[in-house]
């Protein structure tokens, strides 16, 4: 993992991080660089401070502290020496670099009429290492198949940050686009046209409009586009059969998803929420769930064994009553548990 982002780092950080044991380098998730403060690295959900000799400490004393010069070099490298070409990114607070890695920025903001126009005096960086896990959705996909239409059901994927949502939807896009349905009955189904609205350039990690991750041959990507507008544009112009969007939550996103589901397009979206209960606490998500825009809800949980998912049917109370399974609206479906890292654990009834 480190090898993929090392070209972004200034020399002193690079030599320091290369002292990490190889196994840790592979599991790096975040490198947090704060000017004049201890260097922090995160892996497997834990966080440690690095000392100058490359050892890891729980405490911050004796840790390596990046200087302002180091931070300046880092900023120059991640912006390709061109901060002026990154205005949109600075307004959003992060930069996506080739390979899909996202670098969050913190500093003093510049306001323009009360709206954040950018960040100056950047003193904090969070390099999030993106990973492409091919086959991450293999265990989940069979549960989302819509057998009558030979495509996917609309699904909402819920998880707190850092649980692998983006990795999962990227693999869903790839599998659906290639027509690699991981289910024997769906073997003869063809691939579907996939539209990805990639507001944060995380799913496909486009560089100049071309995806750097493999998102499949039948996939169109609307890069760095506001989700609601992007979804409408996709619907109007690209005739997708499956629409994928990351981190929905604004009222206009809800409108667009409703529009898509009425147009017969399956929507796979992710949202920040701990579980279905939590999601229902968010007005936009609750409205979508009540409207039946999503037929399935997937909850992701990261455990010691890897990442587990639980598929919940999300029929609205009124609608589910008319269906064959008149159970309570939530938690009707059984949970399936699997791990993204290939470690399987049977938790299935």
């Amino acid at each position, binding site marked *: 993992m480190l090898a993929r982002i090392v070209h972004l780092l200034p020399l002193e950080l690079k030599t320091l991080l290369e002292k990490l044991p190889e196994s840790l380098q592979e599991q790096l998730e975040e490198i947090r660089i704060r000017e004049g403060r201890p260097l922090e690295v995160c892996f497997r959900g834990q966080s440690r401070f690095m000392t100058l000799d490359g050892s890891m400490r729980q405490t911050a004393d004796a840790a390596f502290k990046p200087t302002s010069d180091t931070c*300046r070099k880092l900023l*120059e490298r991640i*912006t*390709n020496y*061109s*901060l*002026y070409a990154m205005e949109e990114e600075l307004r959003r607070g992060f930069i996506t670099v080739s390979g899909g890695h996202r670098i969050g920025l913190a500093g003093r903001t510049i306001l323009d009429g009360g709206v954040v126009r950018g960040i100056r005096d950047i003193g904090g960086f969070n390099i999030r290492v993106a990973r492409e896990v091919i086959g991450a959705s293999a265990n989940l996909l069979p549960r989302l198949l819509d057998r009558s239409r030979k495509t996917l059901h609309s699904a909402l994927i819920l998880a707190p940050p850092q649980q692998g949502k983006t990795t999962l939807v990227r693999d869903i896009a790839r599998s659906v686009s290639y027509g690699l349905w991981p289910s024997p009955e769906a073997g003869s189904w063809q691939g579907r046209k996939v539209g990805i609205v990639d507001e944060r350039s995380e799913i496909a990690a486009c560089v100049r409009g071309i995806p750097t991750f493999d998102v499949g041959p039948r996939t169109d990507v609307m890069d760095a586009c506001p989700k609601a507008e992007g979804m409408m544009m996709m619907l109007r112009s690209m005739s997708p059969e499956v629409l994928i969007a990351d981190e929905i939550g604004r009222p206009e996103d809800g409108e667009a998803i409703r529009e898509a589901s009425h147009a017969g397009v399956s929507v796979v979206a992710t949202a920040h929420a701990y579980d279905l209960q939590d999601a229902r606490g968010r007005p936009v998500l609750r409205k979508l769930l009540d409207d039946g825009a999503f037929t399935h809800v997937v909850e992701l949980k990261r455990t010691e064994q890897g990442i587990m998912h639980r598929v919940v049917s999300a029929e609205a109370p009124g609608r589910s009553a008319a269906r064959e399974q008149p159970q309570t609206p939530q938690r009707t479906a059984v949970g399936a548990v699997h791990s993204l890292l290939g470690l399987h654990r049977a938790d299935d009834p």
Partner: protein
Amino acid sequence: MIKLLGAVLILFAGTMIGFQQAARFAERPRQLRQLAHALQRLETEIGYGHTPLPEALERTALSSPEPLAGLFRKAATGIWETEGLTFRESWERAVKSQWPETSLRMNEQAVLIRLGSTLGISDKEDQMKHIRLTLVQLKAEEDAARDDQGRYEKMWKSLGILIAVLIVILMV
């Protein structure tokens, strides 16, 4: 015979030195003008094209005549060739290594190096302001250089010959 040959050589050398000095005075405003054009090009690339800096520098190099083109090219390649350089350092290196090739003076060098410490690390408006400030400063230098040219170019041309003649007369 040998004396005559020596006198001719001295005359020739004196004339050449004079012409060379005069050429420096003629060359300086011309290069300052070219430098201003190059920076305007860079400003357009940055302000309107949003071109990343290394690419903007390469393009500026392509549209400028030597020896200035070399300066921009070196600045663009320097950041990739030597690891661990900030852009400011790379720029300063390029300016200093290319300077002997030009007819430009230390004043302009200082102005350019100052520009290098701001390039690429602020927003578009700020970048354009800095480049414009540099252009204004270069313009002032250019005016001064033209004055100098008017004053000293002819003088050096005649001075070279005259000094050579003086030496020859003293020798004879």
